[in-house]
């Protein structure tokens, strides 16, 4: 296998391949559609590099195995979708509290409930606002191409280790199932940082403890403040967003993930029609590009937020945007995938090119 050559694989496979390239050797998960290619790939290839693939008895067991492997100092990962991610919320909250790094992949489904396997961005709130109990955040990365599924997986492991925090890749079946060419292994491989806090047995040092119970009020407060300061640091340092054709734009479209990808076609078509549209695409959903939205909204009058849901990220846009800008929201409930044509129609409406 020539790693540096282009290969046509789907987004799920790209994530799985990237995990191995990132040095992840422990993967625990439970079957759910539409992320099956991840466990399928890793059950085949992890053992080849001395890694462990374990299909857990449940979503809950799998996140707690990740917790254990991470506590032991390893790069560990799980993947699931919608309902499975809901079941992992207790474990995620514990890992955030324990300050344990790991990568969690959500190839989300149509929800709520059992829903369906069509593309959906209905898990934005759960991912970014902390779906589990307590006052915490996790870093959320939103790829928009198969190449980014690969690249952000590697980046995710690095961020997780740097900040000692769970990191989530939030994508959906458009990105998980679509195939595109990917260049793998071309860049510097990621190297896990030294983890002197990890549990390895206390040979030659005093015992280490990983826990989240703080019954003492002062210690509890202090711990929560420490977490909060970490999230502020992440907000300050780790925002990534793509600005595309914004310089001359009259309208900025804000979208992430699959919606952004589909909207690119709409913007292309709009430009062909002479409508000056640009795009701001948050790649980190937490930390959200508050400042970037703020900056752009002070200069441009119209913002169109497009999501494959009934309105979630738009709240973060509203918090950030200047009141000078008019924010229009177009949300499509999950079930049917967003179409470039309907986004184009919304762009035209915003620009008053067609009546409202």
């Amino acid at each position, binding site marked *: 296998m020539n790693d540096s050559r282009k290969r046509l694989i789907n987004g799920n496979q790209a994530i799985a391949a990237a995990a191995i390239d990132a040095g992840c050797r422990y993967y625990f998960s439970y079957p759910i559609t539409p992320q099956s290619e991840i466990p399928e790939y890793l059950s085949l290839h992890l053992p080849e590099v001395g890694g462990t693939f374990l299909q857990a008895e*449940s979503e809950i*067991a799998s996140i707690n195995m990740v*917790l*254990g*492997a991470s506590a032991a100092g390893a790069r560990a990962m799980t993947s699931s979708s919608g309902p499975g991610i809901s079941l992992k919320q*207790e474990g995620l909250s514990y890992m955030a509290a324990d300050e344990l790094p790991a990568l969690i992949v959500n190839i989300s489904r149509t929800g709520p409930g059992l829903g369906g396997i069509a593309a959906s961005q209905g898990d934005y709130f759960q991912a970014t606002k902390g779906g589990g109990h307590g006052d915490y955040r996790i870093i959320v990365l939103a790829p928009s191409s198969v190449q980014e599924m690969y690249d952000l997986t590697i980046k995710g492991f690095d961020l997780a280790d740097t900040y000692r925090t769970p990191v989530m890749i939030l994508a959906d079946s458009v990105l998980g199932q679509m195939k595109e060419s990917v260049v793998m292994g071309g860049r510097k491989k990621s190297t896990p940082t030294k983890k002197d806090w990890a549990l390895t047995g206390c040979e030659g040092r005093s*015992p280490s403890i990983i*826990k989240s119970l703080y019954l003492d009020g002062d210690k509890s407060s202090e711990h929560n403040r420490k977490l909060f300061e970490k999230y502020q640091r992440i907000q300050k340092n780790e925002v990534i967003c793509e600005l595309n054709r914004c310089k001359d734009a009259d309208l900025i479209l804000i979208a992430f993930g699959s919606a952004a990808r589909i909207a690119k076609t709409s913007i292309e078509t709009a430009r062909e029609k002479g409508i000056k549209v640009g795009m701001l695409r948050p790649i980190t959903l937490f930390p959200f590009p508050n400042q970037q939205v703020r900056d752009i909204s002070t200069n441009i009058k119209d913002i169109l937020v497009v999501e494959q849901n009934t309105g979630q990220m738009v709240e973060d846009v509203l918090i950030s945007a200047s009141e000078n800008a008019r924010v229009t929201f177009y949300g499509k409930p999950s079930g049917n995938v967003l179409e470039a044509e309907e986004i184009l129609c919304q762009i035209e409406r915003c620009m008053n090119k067609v009546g409202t």
Partner: protein
Amino acid sequence: MKQVFKRPESLRDVSFHFCPGCHHGIIHRLVAEAIDRLRIRTKTIGIASVGCSVFLYDYFDTDVCEAPHGRAPAVATGVKRVHKDRIVFAFQGDGDLAAIGTSEIIHAANRGENITVIFVNNTVYGMTGGQMAPTTMLGQHTTTTPRGRSFLGDGYPLKVSELLATLEGCSFVARVAVNNPANVRRARKMILKAFEMQVNNMGFSFVEVLSACPTNWKMTPLDALKRVDNELIPYFPLKVFREKTIPDKL
């Protein structure tokens, strides 16, 4: 005279938070003695569960990871898969292991995870205030069975050791008690055996310890001792349910 009984080294020199007459302290001590005996303190990683035994890390002089309620066997699995040469034990109560953690314990056992689980069965949730546990005896009054546990509606006291012993992955399953010196000495042997199984890579080992909870039983510590003999042991017999030998492993 020479000292014939002292605090094990794997136990930190601090007081327990347990209620007067609670057997948790005895069980902690026996586990620490096993760790001392096998000289594995610096290669042991303990997994604390939720409930009265959550403060494991305050008492054991080893690395410890806290697990969410019921999930200690899954957390232990994660740790052990990374450190195959370390000794990983989980310490769980009946609320934790036999209720919310049912699935985790059964599947860890079934996989034959090479870990050791110490299961404290005192027939009640302790820390949350004395609710019915799966192991609560029929007729037993708890804060959530104010009229006594009834098999109609509440079900039967769950025999965890018997259940686990049906699973191929178990190398060792035994039930012990610590309500008199003879039982304590037998418990010491069984706990040591369980750790030895892990040291010898024999797979999942498990010791259920019948334990008294005077506070939630609303009994004096002495009456609680007697209840273990009179009510618990007849229903939860003290026994080695499964024991693999080295040839079994091969």
